[in-house]
């Protein structure tokens, strides 16, 4: 949940380059095990994908009642995170634009571990008019 200081999200008010702050958490073996089970890949090493670093950074700053649909993801892997180590994440709003009259927002996050190892860079393209996507998908089919 967003903290008590969370701002109400307003697409028109967000700014490109706006910092979403940073946060830390400890990656546990249980998180890694659950991630591996969820995707049925016992050799997967980036449970950070499911932690959703960028979306988490955003959710810690903004209370978003609009929601959105993930239109795309870009991720770069540098070093697998190690269970038991703290992970520090910094996030920002990388871009916003209109495409076919629909509002998009790009959020990104960079993760390092407590030893300063760069782990992952993640970028999410989110369309902030989710009902339009639902119509396109023919949800009743």
């Amino acid at each position, binding site marked *: 949940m967003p903290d008590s200081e969370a701002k109400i999200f307003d697409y028109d008010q967000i700014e490109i380059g706006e910092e979403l702050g940073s946060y830390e*958490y400890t990656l546990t073996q249980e998180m890694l095990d659950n991630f591996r089970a*969820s*995707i049925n890949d016992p050799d997967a090493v980036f449970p950070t994908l499911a932690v959703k670093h960028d979306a988490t950074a955003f*959710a810690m700053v903004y209370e978003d009642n609009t929601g959105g649909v993930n239109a*795309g*993801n*870009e991720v770069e*892997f540098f070093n697998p995170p190690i269970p038991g180590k703290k992970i520090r994440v910094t996030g920002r709003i990388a871009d916003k634009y209109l495409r076919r009259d629909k509002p998009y927002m790009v959020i990104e996050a960079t993760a390092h571990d407590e030893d300063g190892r760069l782990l992952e860079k993640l970028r999410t393209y989110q369309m902030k008019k989710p*009902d339009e996507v639902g119509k396109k998908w023919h*949800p009743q089919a």
Partner: protein
Amino acid sequence: MASAGIENIKPGQQIPSVTKSVTQETIEQFENCGILDRQNIHNNPELARQRLGTTYPIASGRMSVAFASESLRRFFGPEVFNHTGSVNLKFLRPVKGGDTITVTGQVAGQEPDANGARVTVNLICQNQNGHQTAIGTGAAVIN
């Protein structure tokens, strides 16, 4: 496996495909890996209905990123992919519980990189009905 050497990689070469069964249980298990206890369109049918108009929650697109990562890791080898790999996917259709997703890919080409050669792979994620759910690219650097 590509990690055997750049000389063995040719444009058009297929990478190992992976096929994954997606259930509402695995969708929710994926969501539960997060550090925030959040209700969203992946784990709450009512929110999915309100926001998307769907009658079902949908899987996070990041699950498909993870599936594609497995396919690429098998091709490049973990020592290469886990340290130089990347995935870039555009999501085209929803994935929901009951779907089976297959990731396929083929080598698009390579270009010089400061640390070797960056090999790019075109990726397709397809559901059990033959519909593309995501397309994009993956890459890694081989020295």
